């Protein structure tokens, strides 16, 4: 959560837009190719008015929910049957979710 950069009130950074797409695992389809990024940047630019609003002393409102301290007891509840868990799986394999082979990985 870094300090603000000039981009917020200026034109969006093309590299940042590309990074945002990559972070979200999205590629514009071949059909859209040229159109997607400029359209996206246009939308962003129209929202840049937000940066000009005076919010000094204002706390962010992340949610209108009035609740706090919602906790549940450590009690067992029925899990799904494995068939249900895998029912929508694109590639069930021996009771597992099958995915393209990976070496090592994130975790």
């Amino acid at each position, binding site marked *: 959560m870094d300090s603000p950069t000039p981009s917020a009130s200026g034109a969006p950074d093309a590299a940042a837009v590309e990074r945002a797409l990559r972070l979200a695992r999205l590629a514009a389809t071949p059909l859209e190719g040229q159109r997607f990024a400029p359209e996206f940047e246009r939308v962003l630019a129209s929202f840049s008015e937000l940066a000009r609003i005076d919010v000094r002393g204002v706390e962010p409102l992340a949610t209108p929910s009035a609740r*706090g301290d919602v*906790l*549940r007891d450590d*009690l067992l*509840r029925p*899990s799904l049957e494995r068939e249900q*868990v895998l029912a929508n799986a694109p590639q069930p394999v021996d009771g597992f979710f*099958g995915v393209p082979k990976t070496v090592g990985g994130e975790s």
Partner: protein
Amino acid sequence: MSAAWQIVVGLETHCQLATATKLFCGCANTFGAAPNTLVCAVCSGQPGALPVLNREALDLGLRAALALGCDVAPRTKFDRKHYFYCDLPKGYQISQYDQPFCTGGGIALASGKFVRLARIHLEEDAGKAIHDRGPYSLVDLNRAGVPLIEAVTEPDLSSAAEAHEYLTALKEILQFAGVSECDMEKGSLRCDVNVSVQRPGGARGTKVELKNLNSFANVAAALEHEVARQIQLLESGGEVRQETRLYDADAGVTRTMRTKEDAHDYRYFPDPDLPLVTLDAAHVERVRSFLPELPAARRARYVAALGLSAYDAGVLTASRATSDYFEAALRHSDAPKELANWLTNEVAALFSDAASGVRSIDELPFKPFDFAELVELARTGRVTRAGARAILRAMCAQPRAPRELMRELGLETVADSGQLERWCREALVGREKIVADVRRGEEKALGALIGPVLKLAGGKADPKAVREKLLELIRAS
């Protein structure tokens, strides 16, 4: 290791909490079940499912915080940490970013060095992906959603040995507190290491992260190899790259896993599905009341108040089960040293003998009360040590009162003074030389007489009582 280099190490340890259910749903928190059988809509990230926080997980986290001397925050919240991987069902992990539930605290090492904790936070575990079975990678979500605490130290450690000691102490404390099993083999404890080297007084070196360490020994070994690698690199004019490396235990080397360029932007933001949690002082104190006396404090008490040796205190506190058993037995006994002695020797011997049928304290079928009684019988000479050992084995087979077994097995030493005297007189016959030696002051010579008396007694005499009787007779005559 070259003396010209300083080693700077920080550890991030993930411990699975000993709750019955997962962090945000009611699926069982159990190891070893068949794949994808402990899974529900929530922990498999089905569209529309929502998390609800497990209060026991929070309380165990608080217990850990108290056991490690941390400062508990007045309020805490959950944040989403985003990345894509096959074992992360929601495409984000619910974790804690800038408001962990506690900060500070730490562990004192034997050398007196204090290893500070930066923070401990709660988060959910990911599922498990298997990459070495067939043409696909296979994902099991049983582990997804299991509650974890992540304890992050400051970079206060300076050697593999210290890292090993820290982890051992952490495990001991968390086990004693009932927070986590901390079993690396079952994955309930995982450790990542951050290590850099620098010249004394020089600038902090580039830090490398080590992952995939599945035993304390591997942590130490990986550290040693990585430090050697970094030093070698720097001494030959190279640069250490900031990256994540995996430890290959078979080859004994660390390998690049990913470099900083691939580093993720996790796009943390507060999870809107989970309200803020207040940690008020009254509740924290209530949790503190559930905290048992921790190992270091117990050891100190055993030595100071009970007169045990530091070694025995250490053995007794190696596990909470042993320590608790000892203290339970102590409630029925005035002889802590004897109890300790029996536990650390005779009972421990049972565990390594397959014939005994018990492999650990948890498997002892007899109660501490009975154990205390057995030790008392041995201490007072009602049975010989050998006899007591025999009774102990019998108790393993069936948990009956030691007194009963003693009678049944005919192990009671003869208390009848008259009978004892008769045996002693008999043994003295023809042994005038030994008698003369003893009269002259060589009490050690008595030793040669005890055996024959015991033989006459068929083993049912207490050697101490025999010795006294012999002395008495020799002096009187």
